[in-house]
């Protein structure tokens, strides 16, 4: 008694499942997807964490009185210098008084090694004596604006301008 074994394999079973062109397309699509995910994640990380990749080195100049209060114009007058590493795209300026804080964004670009003279409207009669001034640099990295909070510079006592 003989048993016939039926062959279930199709006739063209030896053909490749995907061609070289198809595999190329698959690899390209996979690479594009991975790149997109990584870019998005990096971008989101940059926006959320805002950890500035470079040392900004914003500082008050040592030669003059860097910050004073002009009682005539009711403005805080300040001078700061940028470091050599990166242009600063702006500043978040906080003047903390006893009664109120004044927070403004100054979007003046400060080039590398440049000096910037700025003014902030501040009425000490309503906001109280100044307790702290904090200046936080902003930089542009990969078209994202980062606020470099860890590289902020502060000054405590502010004297009247002479």
């Amino acid at each position: 008694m003989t048993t016939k074994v039926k062959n279930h394999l199709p006739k063209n079973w030896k053909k490749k499942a995907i061609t070289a062109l198809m595999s190329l397309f698959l690899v390209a699509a996979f690479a594009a997807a991975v790149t997109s995910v990584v870019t998005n994640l990096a971008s989101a990380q940059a926006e959320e964490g805002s950890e500035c990749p470079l040392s900004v080195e914003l500082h008050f100049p040592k030669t003059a009185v860097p910050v004073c209060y002009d009682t005539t114009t009711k403005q805080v007058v300040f001078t700061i210098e940028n470091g050599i590493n990166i242009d600063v795209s702006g500043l978040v300026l906080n003047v903390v008084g006893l009664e109120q804080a004044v927070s403004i964004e100054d979007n003046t670009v400060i080039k590398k090694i440049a000096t910037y003279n700025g003014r902030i409207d501040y009425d000490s009669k309503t906001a109280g004596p100044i307790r702290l001034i904090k200046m936080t640099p902003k930089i542009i990295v990969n078209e994202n604006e980062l606020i470099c909070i860890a590289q902020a510079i502060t000054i405590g006592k502010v004297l009247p301008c002479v």
Partner: protein
Amino acid sequence: MALSLVVVFLFVASVYVYAAYFSPPVEEQECGARIGWRIMTIDNKEDICYDSKTKQIRFTIENGLLQSLESVYVKVQAEKAEKAILLADAKTGRAGAVVGDIPFDPDLEGKLLDLELIPVVVIDEAEAACTDEALRKQQLEPCKFYFY
């Protein structure tokens, strides 16, 4: 008919009275969003203290980098009293600062047990007090300002 009108009127009136006088000023919820605000450090100390001269709790807040702060919702729990105050003027942008003060008299309200500062931000186009980002203090140091 008249009875049902009276019932409807009473219902509407009670809802209005609750909404106007008894409901919390802002909805509290767990936002799940990291706001990253904190009590500002001034002179190497967290700037929150009790000013016995003006009988106020004073604090300075530094906002985080992700979203604007719309206001600060403050809850005070003391031995003899509890209160909740919405500081609507405590509004600032990213990395901005706000100064807040809350009237508090330990002679009337008793010893402070818990102070809770809750950030109010816009979540899904509505303001919400994010309880999961609350800053809490159980005791406060007396304020010492150099110009006092």
